[in-house]
């Protein structure tokens, strides 16, 4: 028998190797496992986690976080120019609001007046 014939014979035998194959049996505890998964799924966490861990969602979240960070940085840079020249102004405004004398600070007890 030539090697070519031998190869052809092997091919035929291989193609027939699944003839009469028996059905593979599933795990006898399959139903228990299914129920366990369904209960776990009912808690919702698995769904939420699997949704977040999807590559497209994870990348989208990352892009949004980076965009928010970038915007926050840009905004704080431009907001700096809008700060009033007098840094004590806001303190004075607060003091006035609480009806205290602006010229008196917490350490100036001698000049304090009783109103």
């Amino acid at each position, binding site marked *: 028998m030539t090697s070519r014939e031998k190869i052809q014979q092997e091919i035929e035998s*291989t*193609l027939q190797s699944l003839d009469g*194959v028996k059905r593979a049996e*599933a795990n006898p505890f399959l139903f228990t496992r299914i129920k366990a*998964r369904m209960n776990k799924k009912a808690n919702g966490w698995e769904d939420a986690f699997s949704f977040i861990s999807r590559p497209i969602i994870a990348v989208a979240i990352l892009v949004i976080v980076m965009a928010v960070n970038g915007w926050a940085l840009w905004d704080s840079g431009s907001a700096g120019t809008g700060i009033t020249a007098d840094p004590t102004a806001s303190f004075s405004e607060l003091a006035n609001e609480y009806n205290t004398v602006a010229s008196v600070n917490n350490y100036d007890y001698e000049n304090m007046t009783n109103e």
Partner: protein
Amino acid sequence: MINETELIERLKLGDDVAFKTIVEQWQDMVYNTILGIVQNETEAEDLAQDVFIKVFEKVSTFKGDSKFSTWLYRIATTTALDHLRSKKRKKRFGFLQSLTGDGGDEKEQIPDFHHPGVNLDNKERATVLFKAIESLPDNQKAAYTLHKLEGLSYRDVSEVLNTTVSAVESLMSRANQNLRKQLEEYYNRHYR
């Protein structure tokens, strides 16, 4: 013994006993179909679980136009093929990662698959055949697995794959041609 229609009606109402009966009645069929396609026992078990969870969730959409077993085969086949596609995508992503040096450079070693239902005399040959089946296009793989492993007729396969009998004949013929080609290459390498 409850008949199939009643079981399905009870499952639609969320009856746990009906669900258990359905799982126990069809688990081997679903598992064997998936196992033939994914060729991995652990993955096949997880996917069989997925299939039955889908059945429980989607049974309300089953109108009874086809046999329940056909509907089950359809879900099992689609789930298994989707899993293979997702694995392929991950593999491609891993390859890209290895190119950029971000890990994923370890080449995954796929062990030979031994179907538990193959008799001992044919074990080695069946392993070679499963390796060749792995390289078939999805629709050929599904048709071949349903026909050879589950013993479905071409008509039943056509109902599962939602196509015509002649289309299944064509799929099987092309699958056989492709397998012969693969096997010829394999045996040429091993008999040289």
